């Protein structure tokens, strides 16, 4: 079997990041954690974007993941991360299976709007119900990591985030190389012809929707662990808008793109917020405009252009 350069790269990245536990200063570990966690949510968006669907409601699963962790932790006294992960995956799969039967019938703007509506429904429920924490949300208590109790909670979360992000990224990469992965581009280009070829676009999109939701829920869980807090804003539509922004910024061409985009976004936002508190949204808006107009396939297309001597037809 030929060595997969992407897989190799991901492994190296994991090794470098794990080394960071001892080397990185605290602000950098936090930045990496948040970028990876939010990068996973974006990966969920990108997975659907490759099939031509833009979800303006991925915050729904970001929120579900975070709230599953926080509520199990603070209301039911769960102190083991493994339980949280399993719970988040189960809950998000269940929700996505149900909503997916509906959403997989919609395309374009209607998919975007309906997914946004579902995330706003969750927002509305959370904000108005004291039992679910209302606008305050919940704090996430300290956890054990598969039985291990680290001295600093953040060390455990950091390692967990890196490992989970690596596993999901590797699985995503394999998935995109599978027939189901390749069919995404075909569905985006012309769905009816895909059906003529004997594949069901609807069930495939449903499947992709569930996968994307689970990935995003894990992202939400990890970021809840990293910040130690969840609130309903996670399901508000501007949060989802940010994730779409990052997806556009990075591009859909490669598994690394969402993570790079997410890291850049965190950096830009941190500094823009610090130096231009009243104009940072404007900066984001301008960047988004420039990307859409000049780099419609995201920052990753710059990397592809640099590698253009070995064109890879599948990467789009």
């Amino acid at each position, binding site marked *: 079997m030929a060595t997969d350069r992407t897989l190799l790269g991901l492994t190296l990245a994991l090794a470098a990041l794990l080394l960071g536990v001892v080397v990185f200063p605290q602000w950098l570990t936090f930045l990496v954690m948040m970028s990876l966690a939010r990068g996973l949510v974006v990966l969920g968006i990108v997975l659907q974007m490759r099939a031509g669907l833009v979800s*303006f409601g991925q915050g729904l699963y970001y929120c579900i993941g975070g709230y599953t962790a926080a509520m199990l932790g603070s209301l039911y006294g769960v102190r083991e991360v493994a339980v949280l992960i399993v719970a988040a995956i189960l809950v998000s799969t269940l929700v996505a299976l149900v909503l997916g039967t509906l959403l997989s019938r919609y395309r374009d703007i209607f998919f*975007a709007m309906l997914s946004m*509506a579902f995330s*706003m429904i969750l927002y509305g429920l959370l904000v*108005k119900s004291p039992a679910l924490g209302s606008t305050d949300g919940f704090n996430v208590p300290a956890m054990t990591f598969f039985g291990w109790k680290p001295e600093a909670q953040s060390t455990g979360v950091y390692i967990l985030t890196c490992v989970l992000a690596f596993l999901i990224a590797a699985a995503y990469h394999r998935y995109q190389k599978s027939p189901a992965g390749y069919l995404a581009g075909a569905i985006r280009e012309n769905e*009816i012809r895909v059906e003529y070829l004997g594949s069901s676009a609807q069930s495939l999109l449903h499947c992709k929707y569930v996968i994307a939701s689970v990935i995003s829920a894990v992202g939400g869980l990890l970021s809840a662990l990293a910040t130690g807090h969840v609130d309903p804003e996670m399901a508000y539509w501007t949060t989802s808008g940010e994730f779409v922004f990052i997806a556009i910024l990075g591009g859909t061409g490669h598994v690394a793109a969402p993570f790079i985009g997410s890291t850049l976004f965190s950096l830009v936002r941190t500094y823009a917020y610090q130096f231009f508190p009243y*104009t940072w949204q404007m900066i984001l*808006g301008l960047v*988004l*405009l420039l990307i859409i107009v000049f780099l419609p396939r995201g920052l990753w297309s710059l990397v592809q252009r640099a590698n253009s001597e070995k064109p890879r037809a599948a990467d789009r």
Partner: protein
Amino acid sequence: MLTLLAIAVDGLIYASWLFMVAAGLTLIYGVMKILNMAHGSMFAIGAYTSAWIAGWYFAGGDVTWGYALMLGGAIAAGVLVGLVVERGLLRFLYGRDPVVMILLTYAVLLILEDVIKLVWGVDPYFAFQPYTLLGRTKVGPLTFSNYDFGVILVAAIIGVGLWWGLNRTRRGKLLLAVIHDREMSMALGIDVRAYFLLTFVIGSVLGCIAGAVTAPAISVAPGIGVEVIVLAFAVVVIGGLGSVGGALVGALIVGFSRATAVHLLPQVELFVIFGVMSLVLVVRPQGLFGRAQPRKI
């Protein structure tokens, strides 16, 4: 019985407000096939302009021209912003994928949000004088503000005006043709680009008017546009994208369901709006008055 009356009046007030916001949004979508996220910013700009004018005008004591000035200022702001956004940006990007256009207008929304902060600052404006000056009406034990009835009146005027403009004028009929089939209209010699500009400016003005009449009833603070836009989306999607009549029906549905929720079960206020939207989409994916689009092969 009283609750029923309160629900009816509150629902009507809320619906007229929603209709004003949604009419511009749906008109722009119908003609240009752009779901304009920046419409929320138009609302905010209208609200700020009117609150700002009300702030210095009503402080002077003479109120005869105050209301006209607020509305006029908002309309001028709408024309200005609409022109700048369409001429400066959108016209270079027509023909792109509808989803890309959403993202573009999302970028415009982000930019305008900060332009608003730069122009008017971050402190909230309270322009309550126009609201309280008109007095109140007592219906049994319930008190309603006369200003709110004025809002219903303005919405009705806008609704009738739009209907008349679209169905009884030459330009309006041509616009309906563009909404119905853009390519065929082009083939028949209609200057579709000119109608894009006209539509976008009218849509922006409608958004600003909605903001202007709402401003005295709320505190005008950063972020109001972001809240409004999702509600307007719900209304427009329920009614069917691109249908002005649909926006009216959608506004009434959302207005009354919200009023019902607020009076009977306040916890589900937001839930109801988007719940209704999801329900409508499940039954009629193209909205109540939308036309189903044939799929291309």
